[in-house]
């Protein structure tokens, strides 16, 4: 699969190749810059030195000619030739008909056609041909002066430098390509690691993780992020699997019961009445299964968060009073007291939410409290502000939930050991939790010593900013 994947990206579309190309380009450009500077600094400098020496010579010889005429010029040239130890200076003075008058060159080179222009001319002196840089100058009375320097040594140096630079460029190109390949390889190796893991997971092996190099570099960071994501995903998957197992198990039990009843009635029921009774009870079992389905669907509906669109301001005081009123009768019938405590009667806690879901969540908590309270017990339904939150607590004096099991109590189908034999689906607290989370709040289960205190903490809707100061005329009305 990895190979197929690599083939799918053409050579030009590979990130590795692109990175490598950029690397080679940057490397090549900086190398070229370096070579240019070297060339200018060595060969260029020599060239400029020669040219300036010739110019200086020309100016001083012209001055001589003006001061002492041709004889002084010839004498000066001869002296300079004599003083020139390494025999690199070239001078030639010709008359208007190009006949040499003085100097160490036998004739005016044909190449030097124009005056005041630089020429590089091979010259033959003492049987040795060498390269010379020269320039012609006009003298008064039609005489011409040619000044040059033997640059054979400099030409050799230039060739040397050029050769060196050429080699250097070659080495740089090789280095650039090697570096680019190395970068590409590095990238591909790092990515192959990730893609191997992704392929393994796509293939169903969820335990696979991206290997860490241990260097703590960017790729390790990426690998860790990916691994964290995979861990979270597999935890979620475990959750889903647990839920589906639980569904399978918890639905199978009542289905088994209903089936057994029907089959038993089919083969053993004596008379119409017995048959009817069996069918009736089987129908009740089916209703119970349906109720479990409803609750599960409701929880997923809530968890999906779609209900948030229907949020509106909910006043808690009447909502709690209604629930209290609804459940008080049932509580009293069981010999229980149900108290409604509102800490500060002046305060009317309001929140933004789904009235129906809040009612259902609190009804679930009250259902539980009623179910688990011992006769004579006291249940309190209370509400108070806690910072930015409104906390609604339902506290009973029943067996409670052991601390070690509290965090599991909101899992779907969880039943406390002590609750095994009370009716219920184990979905009540899951729904309360889902409702709390939908509202951006939380469900807290605490010890009521004895009993359970279930607290629904929900973000309060901040009271509207104080209205502008009332007009004096309005005061008597509001006081009335």
């Amino acid at each position, binding site marked *: 699969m990895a190979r197929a994947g690599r083939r799918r990206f053409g050579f030009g579309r590979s990130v590795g190749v692109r990175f490598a190309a950029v690397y080679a380009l940057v490397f090549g450009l900086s190398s070229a810059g370096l070579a240019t500077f070297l060339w200018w600094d060595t060969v260029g400098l020599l060239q400029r030195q020669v040219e300036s020496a010739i110019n200086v010579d020309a100016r001083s010889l012209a001055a001589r000619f003006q001061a002492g005429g041709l004889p002084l010029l010839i004498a000066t040239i001869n002296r300079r030739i004599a003083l020139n130890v390494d025999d690199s200076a070239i001078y030639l003075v010709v008359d208007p008909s190009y006949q040499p008058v003085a100097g160490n060159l036998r004739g005016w080179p044909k190449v030097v056609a124009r005056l005041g222009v630089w020429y590089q001319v091979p010259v033959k002196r003492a049987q040795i041909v060498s390269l010379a840089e020269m320039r012609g100058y006009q003298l008064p009375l039609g005489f011409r002066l040619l000044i040059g320097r033997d640059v054979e040594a400099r030409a050799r140096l230039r060739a040397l430098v050029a050769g060196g630079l050429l080699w250097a460029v070659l080495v740089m190109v090789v280095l650039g390509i090697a570096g680019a390949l190395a970068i590409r390889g590095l990238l591909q190796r790092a990515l192959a690691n990730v893609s191997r893991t992704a392929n393994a997971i796509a293939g169903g092996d969820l335990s696979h993780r991206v290997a860490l190099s241990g260097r703590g570099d960017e790729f390790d960071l990426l690998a860790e992020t990916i691994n964290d994501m995979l861990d979270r995903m597999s935890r979620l998957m475990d959750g889903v699997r647990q839920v589906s197992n639980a569904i399978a198990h918890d639905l199978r039990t009542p289905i088994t019961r209903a089936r057994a009843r029907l089959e038993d009635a089919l083969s053993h029921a004596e008379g119409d009445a017995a048959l009817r009774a069996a069918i*009736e009870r089987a129908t009740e079992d*089916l*209703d119970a299964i*349906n*109720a479990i389905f*409803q609750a599960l*669907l409701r929880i997923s*509906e809530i968890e999906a968060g*779609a*209900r948030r669109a*229907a949020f509106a301001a909910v006043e808690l005081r009447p909502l709690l009073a*209604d629930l209290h*009123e*609804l*459940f008080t*009768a*049932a509580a*009293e*019938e069981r010999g229980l007291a149900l108290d409604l405590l509102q800490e500060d009667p002046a305060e009317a806690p309001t929140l933004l939410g789904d009235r*129906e879901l809040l*009612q*259902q969540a609190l*009804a*679930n908590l*009250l*259902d539980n409290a*009623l*179910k688990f309270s011992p006769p004579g017990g006291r249940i309190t339904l209370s509400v108070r502000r806690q910072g930015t939150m409104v906390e609604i607590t339902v506290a009973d004096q029943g067996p409670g939930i052991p601390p070690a099991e509290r965090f599991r109590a909101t899992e779907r189908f969880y039943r406390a050991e002590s609750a095994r034999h009370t*009716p*219920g689906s184990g979905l*009540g607290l899951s729904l309360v939790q889902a409702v709390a989370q939908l509202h951006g709040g939380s469900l807290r289960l605490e010890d009521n010593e004895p009993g359970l205190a279930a607290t629904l903490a929900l973000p309060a809707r901040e009271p509207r900013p104080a209205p502008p100061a009332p007009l004096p005329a309005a005061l008597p009305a509001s006081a009335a």
Partner: protein
Amino acid sequence: MRLLLVEDDKDVAGFVLKGLREAGHVAEHADNGRDGLFLAASEPFDAIILDRMLPGGIDGLRLLETLRAQDNHTPVLFLSALGQVDDRVKGLKAGGDDYLTKPFAFSELLARVEALGRRGKGEGPLTRLVVGDLELDLLSRAVKRAGQKIDLQPREFRLLEYLMRHAGQVVTRTMLLEGVWDYHFDPQTNVIDVHVSRLRQKIDKPYPTGLIHTVRNAGYMLRAEGS
């Protein structure tokens, strides 16, 4: 009552039709949206039981919207497997009068349809409800039985009012929870039974004959002896 059932599932339709006819109603049936719309628009019915997902290009919502657009106000009860809160809200917004989720108990369906059919016969605003020797005055909020004043809590009053408005009909616990408390969920605890039994203590206990009857597997019915 004359009822129309629009439902494509043969088994469910057969079961519902049989039950409705046994209860003494005249029931027509359509198994797709097009026929359902034709019947509903061309004949008078006391109530319509409407499935939401129907074959034939016209689903339940479309059917109802078309009907309402023709100024037909026959009460409609949705009977649907779509049971999310949003589905119910959508159904009621489209002009439905009640919503029952599948699977359902026939007794619940019958009770709700009968309540709807009765409501359809608008008798103008009532100020006084009378069942046997029980009187309830909606204006003074006074309740009397056999001429004796009975003191009721506000919620008990509303519970009795609901039962009296549906006198002679079965009223289920869910209907009471929705109609009296405006709660749309089923508490696990028998909260409704306790409230009804308290009301009974005040309305029936001191008198020789009971008016509030328990209907097995269904709910309650307020009915005067012999009526």
